[in-house]
Structures are given as C-alpha cells and as structure tokens.
C-alpha cells in the first residue's frame, strides 16, 4: 500500500498543470481517487463535508450487487447443465457461469469507461465514477447469450446519448444501465427475448433434455401458460432461467439490506415501488377479467426483474425523484406501470425496464410540483400572519 502511495506521489507532478502529461491529468486523477480516498479539504468558509465521497458510495452499491452476481454466475452453469441433462458440482456450475459472464462484464466496463475517459480528456473534467455501477449492472440485466459486440454497441450508445449528451454523471435523466438494456431490447429483439436466449447453449441449438424449457416465468405468463410458472420457492431462491442478476430474490434482498443499512438506497422508493405493484395487482385480482389478472401479488413480485429493478434501478440517486414526497409518488407509479405493462401489453413480457425509464422522465416534474406545493403552502401561512 505504502509503495503504491509513494509511486503515485512521485508521479503526481507530471500530471499536474505544467507537467509532462498534463493532458492525461483526469486519467491520473481517476486512478488515484479510485485507489485512495482523496485528501482534498476546503480552505475557505464553513462547509460540511461527508467523509464518504461518490466513489465510496458507488463501491457500496457494487458490494450490494455481489450476492446477486455470484448467484447469477452459479445459475448460468446450473441452468446449462440442467438443459443438457448433466450433473455438476456447486463449483463446476459456478466456474461455467463465471467463464460465460466475465466477458460480458469486461466488455461492458471497457466500452463504457473508454467513452467516459475520452469525454473526460476532451472536456478536461475529472473522470466520472458513475460508470462503476452501470458497468456491473449492464451484464446483470441482459441474457447470458447476448453477443458481446451488441453489449459494446449498446453501452457506448447509452453512455454517449444517455449521459454525456446531458453533461455526464449526475446530469443524466435516464439510468444508463437501463438505457443500454432498452437499446438492446428495441434494436435486437431476437437476441433479447423469447425462450432461447436465457440459458447458455439454447440459442446455438444445443440438444436439450425432454421437457426442459428455457422460458422465463414471465415468458410463460405472457403466452398464458400459467401452469408452467415455476414453484414459488424456485423463483425465490432463483433456480430459474432469466437475466444473470435478476433470478435470485434472496440475493437481491441481501443487497437491499446492505443498501438500506448504509443509507445509500432510499427505503421510500423501494417500499413505494412494491406497494404500487401490490396495489395494482390487487385491483386486477378484483377485476379478474382474464387469467393473467388473477395472478397474486407475491407471484408478481417474484417473477422477472421486478425486485432487481426496485432495489437497484429505481433507487438510482441521480435519475430518481429527490424530494421525500416525490419519492413516494415516483415509486408507486413505477410499481403500477410495471405491472400494467406486464398484464395488459402482451408484446412486452416485462414492464419494469420501461416503467423505470418512463418515470425517470417524470422525476424532475414530480419534484417540481412537490416543491411548488410546499412553497405555496408556506406562502399561505405567511399571508395569514400579515392579514392579522
């Protein structure tokens, strides 16, 4: 550790103003602050500085994602071995999944960070740390069979159009990881949906055991094969086909606990999203116009990427609503929209991605009205005093 620090200190002047590599100052800064907590202090005036900076915040989110990621890797191997009818050990499954998932993670980080670094150099900014989380989220919300070049194209698109065009980290109106997925979903629908993409090997026409289906629970529900939805316990533990990170609800709940304990994820948004979904599902249950409407709330929460979205995507501090009351409205509407799209639009089996992106658009508007309502409430209070 000490030698690393000394090495950095020795080379620092070269990257500062007037130094040999002045141009790459932001790159150097990015690595230095990634490795060590920056020792910048404010000199003038009184400021409150939180000791935890943005890179540390992002690191906590990544730690919260690790259970879901590790389980996802194991599940990739498990599903594959089950589809070909082989037995494998715990480690065998994990190793298989690791080999299939790692390229996705590497491609997502390399393509996304490349764009970030280029823009930072070009604009003379610090490198934004926002992509640390997006880079790991992207592989977790796509099918394991997604071709690598598609991931790269979609990541570059999402970072350039969704983030840099709006001014970089903190200015983006859409969650970059979800934008990547939306781009993939609309640009390459054949590689992103159906029952062949969720298990490795199925898309290449591997021979599978009789009776094995690579369809996700939502895929089955979308074509009204409700008896094929796996048992609740399987969906809870996560031994079902699906995007890499979304299957295990236990792992996601561990992540949620970490986010809530450290105070980085908003409990209001998580709770409101679940409440919104449960509310609309109960309403559907009461109407019960078709079979899909009769599915109970708990099954809805267990299917697809709902929980993953509610815990890791909807709570994105940049794109979510900022005010407390706004967070409730934002969360509830996400829950309602997600289930509405699932049940009423057969073209889109999963509605969570579209629901969150839609509400991302409305988050600033919600905040605006919450703040305006507060202002007018306070104005009324002052008027009363004046009139007396």
């Amino acid at each position, binding site marked *: 550790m000490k030698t690393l620090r000394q090495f950095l200190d020795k080379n620092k002047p070269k990257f500062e103003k007037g130094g040999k590599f002045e141009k790459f100052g932001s790159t150097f800064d990015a690595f230095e602050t990634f490795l060590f907590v920056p020792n910048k202090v404010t000199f003038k005036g009184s400021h409150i500085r939180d000791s935890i900076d943005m890179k540390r915040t992002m690191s906590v989110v990544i730690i919260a994602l690790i259970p879901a990621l590790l389980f996802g890797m194991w599940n990739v191997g498990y599903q594959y071995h089950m589809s070909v009818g082989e037995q494998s050990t715990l480690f065998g499954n994990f190793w298989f999944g690791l080999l299939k998932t790692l390229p996705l993670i590497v491609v997502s980080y390399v393509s996304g960070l490349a764009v970030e670094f280029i823009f930072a150099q070009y604009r003379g900014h610090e490198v934004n740390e926002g992509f640390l989380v997006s880079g790991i989220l992207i592989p977790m919300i796509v099918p394991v069979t997604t*071709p690598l*070049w*598609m991931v790269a*194209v979609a990541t570059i698109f999402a970072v350039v*159009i969704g983030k840099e*065009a709006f001014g970089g980290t903190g200015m983006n109106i859409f969650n970059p990881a979800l934008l990547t997925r939306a*781009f993939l979903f*609309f*640009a*390459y*629908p*054949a*590689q992103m949906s159906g029952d062949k993409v969720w298990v490795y090997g199925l898309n290449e026409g591997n021979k599978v055991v009789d009776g094995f289906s690579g369809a996700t629970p939502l895929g089955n529900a979308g074509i009204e094969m409700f008896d094929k939805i796996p048992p609740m316990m399987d969906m809870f533990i996560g031994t079902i086909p699906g995007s890499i990170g979304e299957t295990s609800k236990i792992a996601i709940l561990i992540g949620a606990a970490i986010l809530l304990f450290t105070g980085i994820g908003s409990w209001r948004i998580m709770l409101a999203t679940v409440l919104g979904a449960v509310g609309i599902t109960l309403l559907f249950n009461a109407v019960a116009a078709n079979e899909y409407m009769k599915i109970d709330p708990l099954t809805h929460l267990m299917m697809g990427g709902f929980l993953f979205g509610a815990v890791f995507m909807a709570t994105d501090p940049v794109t979510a609503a900022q005010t407390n009351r706004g967070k409730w409205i934002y969360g509830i509407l996400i829950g309602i929209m997600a289930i509405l799209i699932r049940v009423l639009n057969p073209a889109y089996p999963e509605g969570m991605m579209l629901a969150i992106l839609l509400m991302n658009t409305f988050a600033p508007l919600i905040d605006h009205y919450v703040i305006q309502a507060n202002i007018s409430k306070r104005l009324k209070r002052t008027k009363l005093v004046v009139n007396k």
Partner: protein
Amino acid sequence: MSNNMKKEREALFSAKNIKLLKNPVNLDNPITVQVLGICSALAVTVQLKPAIVMALSVTIVTAFSNLIISLLRDTIPSRIRIIVQLVVVATLVIIVDQVLKAYVYDVSKKLSVFVGLIITNCILMGRLEAFAMGNKPWPSFLDGIGNGLGYGAILIAVGFIRELFGSGKLYGYDVIPKAAFEAGYVNNGMMILPPMALIIIGVIIWLQRSKNRELIDKS
C-alpha cells in the same frame, strides 16, 4: 442614368447571394438550427431513396413558391397573404405529386401523405413569410434552393445512417457483406423506428453546435 443602373444591378452570384444559398445548409439550417420541418424528417428517412426524393421535392417547391410569391409580393393584400401563399404552394405540391406518381410510383407510395403535407411544411411558410414577401425574385429563388438543400442535407444524412444500420442497404442495394451476417452481425431494429431519427438529428445538432459555438443559445 445608365451609370446608376449599373451600380444598382447586382451580379447574379454576388457574395450576398451566395450566402443565401450557403447559410441554410450549415449555420442557418432549417432543421438543426431553426428546428422546422421535423415531422417529415422523422417519417421519410427510413431509407435513402425516399429521403432523396423528398429532399428534391421540397427544394423545388420552396424555390418556385418563393419565386412566385416574390413576384406577386407587391400585389398581394396583406390580409389574405397566407391564403394566397397556400394556393401557390398547393399548386406546386400537386404538380410535384403528379410527377412523382408518373415517374417513380414506388417511391411516391412510400412517401404517401408526406408529399401532400409539404403544403403545411413549416420551412415553406417560414421562408415565404420571412423572405419572399420582402425580397426580390432572384434572391428569393436562391433562398428557396438554399433552404431546400439545407433540409435535404439533413434528410439524406439521417436516411443514410438509418438505412445502412437499420436494413444493411444503401439506396436499396445490399452493402453490408453476407460474411458479416454469417459472423453474427445483426441489423439494428431501432434504426427503423422513428425515435432513432430524432436521436440522430439530436446528435447532428450536438455536433454542429459544439463546432459552431455561436449557435448555442445563451440561457
């Protein structure tokens, strides 16, 4: 007297007139700077061929309606000028539409209502109101051609990108080699959807403004 005449007469392609032609293509582009005529830019740019035909049609209609209105400008009562402009534009559009139907029927079918909708194209009405009503015929004609070309340049650029990546073709011919598809390349379905046209135009605006900083709104 003859001396005076000489002074007043401008060369056909004086610097000022060239500017009328050039400016709308870049710094005063009707689509990227004035943000007019967006609807048709989204609708007809899935392929290159309709985009080119549309660009030509709009250029011709803008140029000649500008010319005609400029000739009539002193005789049009200002209270009914919009109706007069519409009549002139509509006549030209119908002529263009008939020509398209006669010679390039397939493209005409693809463009469908959008040829008819040239009548309500904001660029046209904008040029007639802002330029032709107050300028001489020749500059008005050039202004019409310039704006048509500016509109066309963006349309063709967007059509090029969308057809190349959306269907792997250019002007209807396959350009992406079969080997690429066999290696796993897939056409980008999003390029065929209208939102992508909006995004591409947005990127063009972004590039143009970061190159020409004076275009950025001060706010």
